[in-house]
């Protein structure tokens, strides 16, 4: 699925883009490739959605966006897709999924809502619930109290090596 050359490039750009005026030329010189080739390979990886995007990732906690609420509802199975689709369109929601219920866990619809305080998050959720008519459904909000680990999806080096050795 990925060529060797693509893997080598991904290993570099997943760690960070060079902070210099011509970052792609700098990467190219590290790889012994041409700048145009680096740009075209990145364009292809973006088009194929191997790379979601080249972007900055804010540290929300450090920037004061510390209230992180996981809002959950128990919605009847026959309505969950329709309600989930509407919930997912709300700008206050950053992630929204249907997940299975489990023993001791009755909720099947999940939406993440962020803000600078719990009050702000709860008021956003109350607005969503009112607009979408979610009040009749069992509901809870789980606030995060500690971030214990966070790492983005990474391609591992050993894998690149394994491919090279194949």
């Amino acid at each position, binding site marked *: 699925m990925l060529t060797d050359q693509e893997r080598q490039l991904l290993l570099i750009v997943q760690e960070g883009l060079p902070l210099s005026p011509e970052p*792609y030329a700098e990467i190219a010189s590290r790889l012994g490739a041409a700048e145009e080739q680096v740009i075209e390979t990145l364009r292809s990886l973006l088009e194929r959605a191997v790379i979601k995007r080249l972007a*900055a990732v804010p540290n929300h906690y450090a920037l004061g966006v510390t209230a992180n609420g996981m809002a959950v509802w128990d919605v009847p199975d026959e309505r969950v897709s329709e309600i989930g689709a509407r919930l997912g369109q709300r700008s206050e929601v950053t992630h929204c999924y249907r*997940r299975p219920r*489990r023993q001791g866990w009755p909720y099947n619809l999940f939406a993440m809502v962020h803000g600078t305080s719990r009050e702000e998050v709860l008021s956003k959720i109350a607005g969503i619930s009112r607009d979408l008519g979610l009040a009749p459904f069992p509901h809870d909000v789980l606030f995060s109290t500690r971030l214990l680990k966070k790492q983005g999806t990474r391609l591992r080096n050993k894998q690149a090596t394994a491919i090279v050795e194949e």
Partner: protein
Amino acid sequence: MPLALDQSDKLIVNRLQRGFPLSRRPYAEVGEELGLGEQEVIERLRRLLDEGALTRFGAILNAPQLGGERTLAAVAAPPDRLEEAIEAINRHPEISHNYERDHVYNLWFVVSSENAADIARVIGEIEAETGLRVINLPTLEEYRVEFYYEFRVDSAE
């Protein structure tokens, strides 16, 4: 105290969350859009990364396109075994995120791997190591995945 971003920082952070140009002088291009110089964009970006306002600036990979699998899982750890459970969970390189939340199910973590079989293996190992039952909540439908968070830029500040 949260780190303070000034107006230009916020413009840069908002703009660069959306993507970065594939051109020869991308910082100059972004600077032009925002009314900032190329060097200023680079210097501010360097400072934002150094002080930890940004966790990184680079390629965000798409796990499913890399053949990856992921799931959300949770355990209900009793208070006296909480730290031990955190350690047992975080030790696994397949754990990408782990949050403590205020609920009976108090540890919520994401297990991701390029091999689907790793997910079940890691969950089994965590259950064996902690003696706690793990609830596995894989995505059945996805309605939104949006990482963008807008830092409000107001001219009155």
